[in-house]
């Protein structure tokens, strides 16, 4: 088990830069998730750590060793692919022993290790089955098993739950988490699913356009996003943004928008320009009859115990996440007001959040 460190890592394919100057430190035994939309460079980053792509520049450290230019086979890491990549011409047992055979273990050792891993993943009853006869979940377990038997320095997983159906994905999510607690291996996990990321990760790095925007614990990513993109990408639905055509000064504590007073946390930093964005999570807004931004109800979605009401206002569509008891009919005129001063201001020029008492 090892720490993984990425220093100034960059990867270009021709004119296209897939990963820009990235720096990351993934701690020993940490479950680290790379999260972002497709094409953000998260998989490329993972493949460079694995040795399936060579970096254009920069360094990758596995423990104390610089491995950036080593072959995949020389790095002692395991990789779980989205499509599992189980060898279809071998049965489960041979799939699991395949990595061990290369390392020259004795036959009895291989057998023991394979059976140990199979027991841990509860696939010991299908060891002699063909890959084609397995269900998606079992294939996933075999793929994990093949990574596990080698006891590598780190596990890398590229959307391993992406092809499973929703119900199974939740189950495997739990199993993965439990497995990680059991064996405590450094794990780097790539996904575009923020719920998966939130529930699995010790820390999350949010990526967009080849850049790592923020790497923090899930609750910090959610509550204290460093950029507008992180705020909009995390949360379901994402954060609401209002454009305000005024500069924000230091120590400012409220802003008037369209006649509605929004209390904001005391600002510790002033904005660069005169165009800024207000960010409010949908759950920090509510409907009101007599105060707030005027608008009409555009859509209502039920989420069981909560509902999401979309209100069309002069500032654009606003999502409000409220209690199920709040009534709202389509096209009804309503007003939206903030519940608290849990507001983040993003600088219009840099898209970065301004420091305030709430977010430092």
């Amino acid at each position: 088990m090892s720490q993984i460190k990425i220093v100034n890592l960059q990867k270009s394919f021709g004119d296209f830069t897939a990963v820009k100057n990235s720096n990351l430190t993934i701690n020993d035994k940490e479950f680290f998730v790379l999260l972002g939309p497709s094409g953000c460079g998260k998989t490329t980053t993972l493949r460079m750590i694995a040795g399936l792509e060579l970096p254009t520049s920069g360094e990758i450290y596995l423990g104390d060793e610089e491995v950036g230019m080593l072959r995949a086979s020389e790095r002692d890491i395991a990789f779980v692919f989205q499509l599992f990549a189980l060898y279809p011409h071998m049965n489960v047992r041979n799939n699991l022993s395949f990595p061990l055979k290369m390392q020259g273990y004795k036959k009895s050792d291989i057998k023991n290790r394979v059976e140990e891993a199979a027991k841990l993943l509860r696939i010991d009853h299908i060891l002699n089955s063909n890959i084609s006869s397995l269900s998606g979940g079992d294939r996933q377990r075999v793929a994990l098993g093949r990574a596990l038997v080698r006891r590598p320095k780190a596990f890398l997983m590229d959307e391993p739950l992406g092809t499973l159906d929703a119900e199974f994905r939740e189950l495997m999510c739990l199993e993965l988490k439990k497995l990680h607690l059991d064996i405590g291996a450094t794990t780097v996990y790539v996904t575009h699913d923020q719920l998966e990321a939130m529930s699995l990760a010790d820390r999350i790095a949010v990526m967009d356009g080849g850049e790592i925007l923020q790497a923090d614990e899930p609750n910090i990513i959610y509550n204290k996003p460093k950029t507008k993109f992180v705020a909009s990408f995390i949360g379901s639905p994402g954060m609401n943004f209002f454009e305000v055509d005024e500069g924000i000064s230091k120590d400012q504590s409220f802003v008037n928008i369209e006649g509605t007073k929004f209390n904001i946390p005391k600002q510790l930093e002033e904005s660069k320009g005169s165009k800024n964005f207000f960010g409010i999570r949908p759950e920090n807004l509510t409907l009101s009859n007599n105060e707030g931004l005027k608008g009409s109800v555009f859509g209502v979605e039920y989420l069981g115990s909560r509902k999401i009401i979309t209100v069309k206002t002069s500032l654009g569509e606003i999502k409000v996440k409220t209690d199920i008891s709040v009534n709202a009919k389509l096209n009804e005129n309503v007003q939206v007001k903030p519940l608290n001063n849990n507001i983040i201001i993003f600088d219009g020029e840099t898209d970065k959040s301004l420091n305030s008492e709430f977010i430092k």
Partner: protein
Amino acid sequence: MDTSRSYLEPSSFSKKMAAAIIIVYAVITLIPISWMVMTSFKNVDSAISYPPEVLFEPSLEGYVNLFTNRSRQSQEYLDSLPPPENWYEELVRSREMVITGPSKFLGRYSNSMIIGFGSTFASVFLGALAAYAFSRFRVPLKDDLLFFILSTRMFPPIAVAVPIFIMYRKLGLGDTHLGMIILYTVVNLSLAVWLLKGFMDEIPKEYEEAAMIDGYSRLQAFFKVVLPQAMTGIAATAIFCMIFSWNEYAFAVLLTQFNAQTAPPFIPTIIGEGGLDWPAIGAGTTLFLLPVMIFTIILRKHLLRGITFGAVRK
């Protein structure tokens, strides 16, 4: 109305029509082959009798003549010999001849085997490596190279017979097994590369990436993971290559005489007394048919799947 039948299922009438067409086609293709097999079991007279005999008394004369050299002797000489030791000697003596030794057929037949299987193996092996490279790596001028490889099939190979004949004489490759293996491999290789590239493209690259992460080199991953999955394509390609090099006649006539002569140019030269020995030629062609038939039957399952050219993957 019968509603139990799916609309996608062909009607029983069209099924019968299909069966009838297939049977007619099978009969048309099988007539020359069965005629050839029948001829091999006739004797010299019934083979050329007119009208042709469909029912005849089977004889192994053709096979005996194929494998032996004989000379005609006078009746007095034959009478002076000890009684024949076995059935084929008896058969030959009944025609007033004695066996003077084995014919060249077995040698030519094994030449065909060595050259056929040798060039098939070489084509498939080299083709698989090239196809893998074209499928996986960013080869400079990839499309041009692939077109260039294909272009070697755009003229009949015999069009370059004269230059090849001269080159082979200078290189000392004429009438050698190696020379023929190289020649047939060159002709088959472009087909092998193109066919196998299609199959390789269908195999997700994650398989060999997984193997490489599991500690294998790329070449090891190729042999242990990629090749087994390309078996369908390899089988289909092997059959196409085998059929070509097994049947090839023109180059074999031109470039081989003694040492490396294959069966196709040899069989038609089997001359009996006063004309071609048709039963022996029939016997030769019948035996010549067998290896390709057996080879194809062994690889039949793969071939059927392979002929769809990887359009459907399990």
